[in-house]
Structure formats: C-alpha cells, structure tokens
C-alpha cells in the first residue's frame, strides 16, 4: 500500500532538512578558515547525511512504490523537497554559516528530544540515534555563536548582520502547523506544541552569553517549504547535488 501521507511528509521534512544542511556544509570543503573547522563541518555534514538516509529509508518504505533513499535524494525536483528554507540559504561568511547551523541545531535538538519518545518505534530509534550526534553539533555551534558574538567588534557586527540575513526564515521553526497537530492528535508523533518556546529559550540563552540581540518574532513568510515553495537558492543547490544521477541515471561505483 502506498502511503504518501502527512507522516511521510513529516519524515521528508526531517530528511530533506538534514540532507540540504549537509550539502551546504560540504561547500566549505577546501575553504574553511582553519583545518579543524573544516573537519568539524565535514563531520557534522556526515552525521546529517546518515540521519537523512535513515529518515529517507523509512519514508521510502511508507511510499512503497519502488522508491529508495537515493531516489528521494537525487531524483526529486525542487518542488518536492520539504526542507526548511533556513538550511537552503547560501553559506555567506562564517558568521552566516554558524548562525544557520546554530538555529538548525537548536531546532533539531529540541525536536529530536520530543521524537525520541514517539510511539512509532522507527521514529523513536532514529531520533534517539540522531540526538546523540546533535548534542555535539549544538555544543559546537553554540560555542561559535558565543565566541563570534562576544569577540571583536568586527566579529560582533558580522554576527548581527548574519542574524538579520537569516532570521526571517526561522519563522518555520516556530510556527504551529495544522498537519503536525493532527499527527500528534492521532498519536503518530508526540505533540510539538512546546517546540517553539524551547527553541526560542535556547536562542535567548546563547545570545545573552554572546551579547547578541534576539530580534522580534519573525512574521509569516510568503514562501513555505511545506508546500514546496522554496527560495531561489534550492534549485541551484540541487542542480549541483543531483547532477551525476540526473546525467547518468543509476550510475554506481
């Protein structure tokens, strides 16, 4: 039975967000400010690719039309992707990269903490596994936000600018969604009602240490990844990421 339902959409949201964030991190290969940072970013990216694969494999089983994790990653078009708009934004400078990473890590941390108690054993297992990794991701990105925010005038200014650049996309991390409320009511996933407050509390805490200002709550954005309406950046990213499988379908090594 094919189940392209709301739960599958939810799994794709998690998988797509992890994959696109990983792809952005990999763009730093060979250009990071220090070799330790390059290794750090690649390691986080690697964890996220693994997490994406776990979510995709579950989604593929539910879709059950012969699709698999590779097809979901490499053969879907932009409009089919459900990743957060935040993670598809260009890397910019190191401040933008770390700000995006921190917002995403804090979201993952609280979301996975909730999902590890899911009744669905598969969701619970993947969330529990991923959370162990995400604790390290969040620790690292929080430290960078603090170091840059509470660093030099230059690094502080760059952080303020980075926050201005990506803050509007965080609306997707804090807005309540009817489909997820319904999933929680039917018992497919635990309630995500407290996620926005938890996410904001972490941002407040780290920004306070970093001497950074938390902007006003972002207003609803005219694009939404839930309907496949992305910013112009995702298409360009996919063109690069999917090139090989598009040009040489089923190529393997």
């Amino acid at each position, binding site marked *: 039975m094919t189940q392209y339902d709301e739960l599958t959409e939810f799994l794709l949201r998690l998988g797509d967000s992890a994959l696109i964030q990983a792809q952005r991190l990999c763009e730093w290969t060979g250009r990071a400010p220090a070799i*330790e*940072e390059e*290794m*750090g970013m690649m*390691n*986080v*990216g*690697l*964890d*996220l*690719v*693994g*997490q994406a*694969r*776990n979510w995709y494999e579950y989604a593929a089983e539910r879709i059950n039309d012969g699709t698999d994790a590779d097809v979901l990653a490499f053969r879907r078009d932009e409009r089919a992707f459900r990743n957060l708009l935040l993670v598809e934004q260009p890397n910019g400078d190191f401040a933008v990269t770390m700000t995006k990473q921190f917002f995403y890590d804090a979201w993952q941390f609280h979301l996975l903490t909730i999902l590890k108690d899911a009744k669905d*054993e598969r969701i*619970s*297992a*993947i969330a*529990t*596994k*991923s959370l*162990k*990794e995400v*604790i*390290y991701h*969040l*620790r*690292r990105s929080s*430290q960078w936000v603090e170091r840059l925010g509470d660093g030099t005038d230059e690094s502080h200014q760059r952080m303020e600018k980075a926050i201005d650049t990506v803050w509007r996309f965080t609306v997707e991390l804090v807005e309540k969604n009817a489909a997820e409320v319904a999933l929680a009511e039917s018992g497919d996933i635990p309630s995500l009602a407290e996620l926005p407050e938890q996410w904001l509390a972490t941002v407040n805490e780290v920004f306070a240490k970093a001497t950074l200002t938390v902007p006003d709550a972002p207003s609803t954005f005219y694009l939404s990844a839930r309907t496949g309406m992305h910013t112009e950046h995702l298409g360009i990213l996919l063109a690069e990421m999917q090139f090989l499988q598009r040009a040489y379908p089923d190529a393997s090594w």
Partner: protein
Amino acid sequence: MRAGELITTDQQGRSGGEADIQQAYKVLEEVMDPEVPVVSVMDLGIVRDVSWVDGHLKVVVTPTYSGCPATEYIETSIRDALQEAGFAHPKVSQRLDPAWTTDWINEQGRNRLKAYGIAPPVGSSNKRSLLSGITQVECPHCGSKDTEQISEFGSTACKALYRCKSCLEPFDYFKCI
C-alpha cells in the same frame, strides 16, 4: 566467486549449536575496525546479536554514528571473515535500537585504544553534562591530565582533537556518546 560459495556444508556440517556460535564470536574478535585497526568489532560493542536462522548464521550490528562511512565496510568484513572460517552465506543486518553508546566499548577495547594513542571515552554517556562539554581527558602518551580540546571534531566523526599541555603532543579523543 567468493570464498564461502564453495562451502555448502552448513546444512549438513553445522547445526547452529552453541559451539558454532562460539566459533563465530571468535572470528568476530579478529574483525578489526577499518579506521582504528587495533580494536575489533567485538571490542567496540557494535555486534548486537549472533544467532542461527534458517540454516545460516545471522549477525546483527549497530552503526556507531548515523553517517559512519565504515559501516558498509565493516559489514562486508564480517561476512568475508565468517565465510573464510567456513560459514556459508552468513547474513549481516543492521539494527538502530538501542542506539550505540561508547559505554559498550569493552575494557580490552579501551586499553587497545589507549595503546594506539587514542584517549578512550571518559565517563558514561547518560550524563546531561554532555551539553556543557567539560571533560577531563587523560593524555594517552604521558598520562597527564593537563590537556585541552583543540576541536570538537577530529579525523573521524567519533573523535575529538586534543592537545597535551605536559608533553605537548596532540592526540585523538574517542568521544563519549
């Protein structure tokens, strides 16, 4: 043709009794991690179950990290080693739950890591203090506790990079998860 395909004696020769399972475990003691070739898959605690199913040996493993690129390699190594030891068509499958923890690395594994120059994980993975990240790591070279973290991530996802302030040598620390 792979080594094991010549051997078709499982159905007649092996019953899947305790002796066969014990022999399989012995073989697994010799299958080394490709990234840290001094510790075996048994030392790491990634082998979760060895059993006899439908006339074949079945090994269940769990990945260390979601994206660990060595996972497939380890599964192949396990299959190859068992085939060479005479098990026909051993099956290796993956299990995510319960999630792997460094608490499962045995004493021998910890000693081997240390002798190899990698500081073994400190403490238990269940501590909430993981988020604060304050861990005192002992230098695997000189034993000094005066060490500092250089980077949260080292040469692989499972390690962080440290430096000893006594002997000044850098070293890898196997992170606690």
